[in-house]
């Protein structure tokens, strides 16, 4: 599903953001990605959705090689992924349903299937009644739900989440996390970067930890439970 093989990413100005990272996330797996700010979490995620290319090593996602992907093929990769962010990244001047429909429209989905699918997705994330609301009329948690519904629009193999609960209060965080767990239960892999160690501790999922660009811990390799110290 996602495979990193000795992946290094260097930036001209700031140097190496990721050093020799090797790991594999399988089908239907749930994994946390932790580490302090600037440890390379976002870089790792960007490499996964081809927003960056590795300086060396190989990144394979959903059967595509990110290192050699042609520019025109990037959208094809993105359609196999669902990506969500701390800041939601919704189009402010479109309603919840328009935001979700947009992700379907870009793939050339037939306009006859879009409304039904959008309604189902909104139901799935618990926003059936908010279809016509604009992002600024929704709470943070609700906006993130819209973003998740959009991420699921193209039936992704994996959901990549970059601090999806970073801007949310406890209650909203629990709701969003539950939603991600449900998505995972339905068979979609989830790779979630987070600062929230409490959340990581409470769940028995795989943990990958980065520090200064290095993958310093992978619970799948050591077999150890999620750390408490880190």
């Amino acid at each position, binding site marked *: 599903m996602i495979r990193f093989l000795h992946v290094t990413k260097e930036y001209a100005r700031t140097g190496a953001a990721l050093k020799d990272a090797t790991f594999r996330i399988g089908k239907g797996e749930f994994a946390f990605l932790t580490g302090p700010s600037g440890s390379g979490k976002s870089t790792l995620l960007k490499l996964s959705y081809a927003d960056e*290319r590795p300086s060396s090593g190989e990144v394979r996602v959903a059967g595509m090689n990110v290192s050699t992907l042609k520019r025109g093929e990037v*959208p094809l990769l993105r*359609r196999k992924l669902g990506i969500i962010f701390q800041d939601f*990244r919704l*189009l402010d001047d479109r309603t919840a349903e328009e935001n979700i429909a947009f992700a379907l429209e870009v793939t050339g989905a037939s306009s006859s299937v879009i409304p039904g699918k959008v309604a189902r997705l909104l139901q799935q994330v618990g926003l059936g009644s908010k279809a016509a609301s604009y992002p600024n009329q929704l709470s943070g948690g609700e906006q993130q739900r819209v973003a998740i519904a959009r991420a699921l629009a*193209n039936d992704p193999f994996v959901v990549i989440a970059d601090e999806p609960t970073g801007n949310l209060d406890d209650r909203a965080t629990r709701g969003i996390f539950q939603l991600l767990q449900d998505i995972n239960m339905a068979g979609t892999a989830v790779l979630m970067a987070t600062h929230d160690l409490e959340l990581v501790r409470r769940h028995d999922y795989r943990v990958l930890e980065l520090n200064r660009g290095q993958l310093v811990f992978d619970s799948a390799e050591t077999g150890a439970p999620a750390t408490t110290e880190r």
Partner: protein
Amino acid sequence: MRLTIREALLSFRRAPLLSALSIMMVAFSLFSFGLFALVAINFEEEFSRVEERVEIQAFVDDTTSVTTLTDGVALVAKYAEVQRAAPITRDEALSRARESMGEFRDVFDAEFLPASIEVQLKEGFRDAVSVRRVADSLEAIPYVNDVRYGEEFVQQLDAIRTVATGTGVALGTAFALVAIIIIAATIRIAVLARAREISIMRLVGATNGFIRRPFLLEGLLTGVAGGLLALLLLRGAFALVTRLDFVNALFLDRSMAMTGIAAGGLLGFMGSAFAVRRHLKHV
């Protein structure tokens, strides 16, 4: 295509102020270029009217018969540079002289003035070099004994033409460049305002073509609207100026007006293409 049109129109509705600003910038740029074009067209028109006065007179020997004169005229009329050649008999010369001299009319008599061939040149041959060349050929005709043309007048016309053409090309290029730069900058701002939107589109897997198309259409529409507005402004300015009685000016003809609008559209399209490309280059 339906989606492209919807997205392009949506952007006008969502950012009406920015769209209006873009259209106005295009309009004012094209308007100032149009004003310059109007001045240039009218100057050109006046200039060619002055040029029509360039004439060559070839005076013939007193002994030349009317038949010879007529044959000469026919010969000269075949020169490539010549628009019209006409025989002026001594009598005609006299009556013309009398007409233009007014009170001195009695000073002249027919013996005094020679017959001549009067030559007008085609447009494009009214410069000093061509005039000189034709004059030389006329002088080579055996019975022609003197050739006159306003040498100084022709040379001055030449000088004015050189300066006017040079200034026109320089000013025109400058106006066009400024228009292009302003339009490109305006459209870039419009695209920049939507950089976030573009990045989100990319995120959900929109192809570059899908992202680009509405922008291109929007740029094209902005440009055409700007072109139309410019034409309207120009027409208004023209009407204002020609209300003064002493001004008798020409306006752009239909094909020029169409070209102007098309140029607006093209500028908008190219400006958008260029601005969007910068945002799509990444990765």
